[in-house]
C-alpha cells in the first residue's frame, strides 16, 4: 500500500512538472463569455459584409458559432476541445481568396474593438489565427 502511495506521489509530481498550459490569452479575451461575444460580434459583422457574406449563405450559423467559439478557445489556450472538422476540410471547395480572409480578419478586429479588447491582446489572437491561413485560403 505504501509502495502504491509512493508510486502515486511520483506520478502526480511528474504531472505537476508538466508545463502548465498558458491560458493568459484565453483569460485576456474574457474567457468563455468574452470569446462568445467576440465570435457572435464577428458573425454579425460578416452578415453585414457584402464582401464575404455569400460564403456563409448555406452554412448552419448556429453550428458555425459553436465550433468557432471552440476553435478560438483552443487557439487562445483555453480549456476546450475543438470538435469540428479540420480547417482544410471545412474550407474545401469554398475558394476563399486572400482578400476574403483579410475581410474576415477585419470583421474580427471590429468585433474585438467593440468588446474593448486591448490591441496587444488582439494581436496575439490574430497571430494564432493567421497561422491557419494556409489551411483556409485557395482550397
Amino acid at each position: 500500500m505504501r509502495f502504491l502511495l509512493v508510486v502515486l506521489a511520483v506520478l502526480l509530481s511528474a504531472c505537476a512538472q508538466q508545463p502548465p498550459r498558458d491560458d493568459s490569452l484565453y483569460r485576456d479575451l474574457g474567457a468563455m463569455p468574452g470569446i462568445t461575444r467576440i465570435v457572435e460580434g464577428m458573425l454579425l459583422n460578416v452578415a453585414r459584409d457584402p464582401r464575404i457574406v455569400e460564403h456563409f449563405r448555406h452554412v448552419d450559423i448556429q453550428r458555425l458559432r459553436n465550433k468557432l467559439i471552440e476553435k478560438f478557445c483552443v487557439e487562445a489556450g483555453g480549456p476546450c476541445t475543438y470538435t469540428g472538422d479540420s480547417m482544410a476540410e471545412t474550407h474545401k471547395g469554398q475558394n476563399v481568396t486572400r482578400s476574403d480572409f483579410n475581410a474576415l480578419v477585419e470583421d474580427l478586429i471590429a468585433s474585438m474593438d467593440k468588446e474593448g479588447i486591448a490591441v496587444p491582446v488582439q494581436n496575439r489572437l490574430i497571430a494564432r489565427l493567421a497561422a491557419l491561413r494556409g489551411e483556409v485560403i485557395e482550397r
Partner: protein
Amino acid sequence: MRFFLIGCLAALTVQTALADNGRLIATGGASSLEGAAGGGITPWAVLAGYGEQHEWGATAFATTVNLPDYRLDVAGLALAYDNRVELSFARQRFDLGTLVHRLNLPDDHLGQDVLGMKVRLFGDVIYDRLPQVSLGLEYKHQSNFDIPRLVGARRDSDVEGYLAASRLFMGAAFGYNVLVNGNLRYSRANETGLLGFGGDRRDRRSLLKEGSVAVLFNPRWAVGVEYREKPDNLSFAGESDWADVFVGYFPNKHVSVVLAYARLGEIATLADQNGTYLSVQGSF
C-alpha cells in the same frame, strides 16, 4: 495639386460605394518621395494600394517638405496589380529659396521626374514565413540641368535599382506590431537626383543602405523612424544621409496622412536642413 485635391475629395465621397476589398489597412504604406509605396524617404517592399491577387490598387499623393532654406514639393501616382507589380510616377520640385539671389543662380528651383517599377519577388509582409521582398527600378530625369552641370554633375538622367524587404513582426514591441524594412539601393543620384547623377568626385553607382522601423499602436496609427544613406559624388558640397521620425495615420483604406520631422542635413552647401514633412495620400 488642385486636381489631386479634387481627386481626393471625389474618392472620399465615393468611398462608401467602394468595397474595401484586398489587403489589410496600412499594408499599402504611404507614398515615398520618389512615388513608390513605402515610408517617406524610403520605399517598402509592399505595393501601392490594397489590391490582392487579381485586384488593382492605385494611389495619388502630394508631399511637401519645408526646410530652413529650401522647400520640396512632390506629387505623383502609383498603380499596382495582383499584389505583384507596381508602376509609379512622381514629379519633384525643389525650391532653392534665398540661394538663388545669393549665388545669382540661373534657375530658382530644381526639378525631377521619377518613373518607377516595383515587382514583388516573394513573401508576404504579414502572413508568409519569408519577408516580403521586392525589386525596384527607377528611371529619373532631372528637368533643369543648368545648376547641376555647374556644380559638377555628369548626367541629367539615370536608372537605379533597389531591393526591398519588409516584415511585420506581430506583437514584437510590448504586444504591438512592428514593421521592419530594409533596402539596398544601387545609385549615383545626387540628392536623390535633384542635382543630377554622378559627379566630379565619383561617377560610379554606390550600394546604399536604407531602412525603417514602425510601431503600429493599432491598425490605423504608426510611429517610426527612417534612415537613408546617400552618396557623396559632388565636390562643391557635402551630401548628408537622411533620417526622419514620423507619425502615420490611416483612418480608412482611402486616405492616409504622414507627418514627420526630417533631418536632411547639408544640401547644396547649406547645412542643417531639418524640417517638417507632410504627405497626404488618396487610395482607390
